């Protein structure tokens, strides 16, 4: 009986542990500072996390297949400067910078995917190599200078509101819904889990493993392209040195959200909560005016602690 109850509790914790950790952090922050739990600040947090959120959702796909993508931050910069290059006022219609940025992200993702699957090289190395390649391309394309003077229409993507909701948040929501549905209800979604869970078995089930992986990397690149556009629009600049180490925050969010780096397990909702935890910590520590050096220590402790609290269930 009591063991059954304990089992039920631990099952609950396993399933919702990280959500609980998130709520605990939010409650503590609400108590600690009156500025945290205000509608304005919540909107700010959501807007802030949208870029990391879009990146994290993309890399969730890759991680579930058992891969990793370290090139995200650089791709963000590259697609940002590409978009900015075509977003000067009175030049091209908005679709051109956006389309080209997405295309660039897609191509980089496809390159990652092809080298990993056909070349049989570890994703870590391929995407690490791509990280420096994409950064180099961003610098070459922009001549090492920020690309400025962007059209108001373009900047609207990063700073505007639509129906009172900031556009980046809307885009993030859209990405959450589409990718959640893809992972849960479509074949390719299930194949992504299968490939990550047991590649040999997936192959033996007649799944074309390479195509599935390729899909994941392409999607990840594409979403990095979208995030690049949002970032460039948000800071009104294509910044060739933007996004350094952003991939680590994105991957951290995914892992905090319960997706296993070994592949085969994970969910979009988990990733979203992971993204929110990181976002809330960053925001909260700034609000509390924790000194910058201690902020890093506290942030590290909270991230480990949140995951620890989560795993306590298991």
């Amino acid at each position, binding site marked *: 009986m009591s063991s059954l109850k304990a089992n039920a509790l631990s099952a609950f914790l396993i399933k919702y542990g990280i959500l609980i950790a998130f709520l605990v952090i939010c409650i503590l922050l609400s108590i600690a500072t009156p500025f945290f739990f205000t509608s304005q600040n919540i909107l700010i947090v959501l807007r802030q996390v949208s870029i990391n959120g879009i990146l994290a959702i993309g890399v969730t796909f890759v991680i579930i297949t058992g891969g990793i993508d370290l090139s995200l931050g650089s791709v963000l910069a590259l697609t940002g400067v590409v978009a900015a290059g075509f977003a000067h006022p009175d030049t091209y219609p908005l679709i051109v910078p956006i389309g080209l940025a997405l295309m660039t992200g897609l191509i980089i993702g496809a390159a990652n995917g092809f080298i990993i699957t056909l070349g049989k090289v570890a994703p870590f190395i391929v995407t690490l190599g791509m990280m420096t390649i994409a950064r180099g391309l961003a610098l070459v394309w922009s001549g090492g200078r920020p690309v400025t003077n962007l059209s108001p229409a373009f900047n609207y993507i990063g700073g505007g509101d639509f129906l009172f909701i900031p556009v980046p948040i809307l885009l993030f929501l859209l990405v959450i819904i589409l990718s959640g549905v893809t992972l849960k209800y479509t074949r390719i979604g299930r194949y992504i889990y299968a490939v990550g869970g047991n590649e040999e*078995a997936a192959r033996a*089930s007649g799944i074309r493993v390479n195509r599935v992986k390729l899909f994941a990397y392409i999607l990840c690149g594409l979403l990095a392209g979208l995030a690049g556009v949002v970032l460039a629009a948000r800071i009104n600049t294509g910044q060739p040195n933007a996004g350094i180490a952003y991939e680590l925050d994105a991957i951290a969010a995914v892992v905090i959200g319960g997706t296993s780096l070994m592949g085969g397990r994970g969910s979009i909702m988990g990733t979203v909560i992971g993204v929110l935890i990181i976002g809330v910590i960053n925001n909260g520590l700034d609000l509390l005016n924790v000194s910058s050096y201690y902020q890093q220590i506290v942030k590290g402790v909270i991230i480990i602690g949140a995951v620890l609290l989560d795993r306590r269930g298991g």
Partner: protein
Amino acid sequence: MDFLLQAENISKSFPGVRALNNVQLQVKKGTVHALMGENGAGKSTLMKILVGMYRPDEGSIYFKGQSVHFKSVHDAIQSGITMIHQELLPFPDLSVAENIFMGNEPRGIFPGWINLSKRNRDAKELLERLGLKIAVNQRMGGLSIAETQMVEIARALSNKAELIIMDEPTSALSDKETSILFDIIRELKREGISIIYISHKMDEILHIADTITVMRDGEWIGTYPATEVSQDKLISFIVGRELNTIFERRNHKLGDELFSVSNLDGAKFKGISFSVRSGEVLGIAGLMGAGRTEVVNAIFGLEQITAGTIKVKGRPVKISAPNDAIGCGIGLITEDRKRTGLVLSATVKDNMSLASLKKISRGPFIKKRKEVEVARREVRRFAIKTPSVNQVINYLSGGNQQKVVMAKVLLNDPDIIMLDEPTRGIDIGAKAEIYKLINELAAMGKAIIVISSELPEVLGLSDRILVMREGRIQAELTANEATQEKIMQYAMNTTGYNYQ
């Protein structure tokens, strides 16, 4: 068009091994074609070639009269060939229904979508057909091996293939599930579906096969109609010599009580008490999921014990990890060699010495020469087919891998030896060797516990037999009083009798 499938002059080499040499195979429509041969004969390799997992070095394959060159399993499935693999291939984190229909999902409303309710319905139907009482949304990783095996069978059935290859599908099954599988095979035959059936179990083959092909050392030996070949003849084809009875009548001299447990409780069992004397073989029988594996795993420290005591040589011991158990002189040959038995990425030698490295070390250093010596000796002793002791174990055939696990545990020279399904996937010749070995160990005064789902094996080996059901011991039978029928009665609870 006589044959559904024809494979001609197939050859295949791996680094250092010629796995197949000019092999041929012809399968008629609507028949069961059995494939037999010792461990490492090349059966699985041939099958993997048929489903496009490996490319043959030479030879040609015709399916439905047409020459085929599968580039991947996907192609083979599209053409109508599917396979149940010898090594279980589950997706542990996905549900049972998802496992069954992976790669073959019922289509949903939009392109690319899955019809979830139809999938779950169909999965439920398939499981019922297989007599399996598990929920379709259960996580695959939580299943026992036997259940996993049954789900893999369901997966093959879901594919609606014309040729189903079954590579040792019953090695983890007990008689009850096996007979369900055979019913299904007969049904499939009636529908005109062909089956290639690989097994080391002689009676099964003679029971279900229409045609039998025998292989030895990568060579084709012959193809025979099942009705025209006797068991003895078949065995001599397989091993290339005459083989005497497998169970030699043993004459165990029982000594003092070496090992006992009383009132053990765990997650999946309750109130387990028994004892084993030196020189004795204790068999544990039961249906799949009876909790036998859980009991020995818990004794060995792989799982938690919530209550009860374990005594070795009369002294209570505390075991919280396998390390403690090994220290007490207990050895366990685990049920699932892939999950808990072997480090697949390591060599034969490294696997063998892993549990007993302390014995061949000086200080922190391993005596390398000694290690190789020992490994070579064991390879000879168990007749393990491997190009060298430095071969990565993943590349050995299933049966040979099992022998390495056995050698590893015995190298520690335990006094109490627990064997969980020790002959799973082992060929008939090697089986006889293992039985002989068990008897030898008993004669040396060891206490032995054998779990087996093959009743003849339990009956042939044991001095005493425990029957388990639903996590409890239902009966204890002596060698003389035990019969297959009696064991099955207790295992399935057809009597009201409750031991304890």
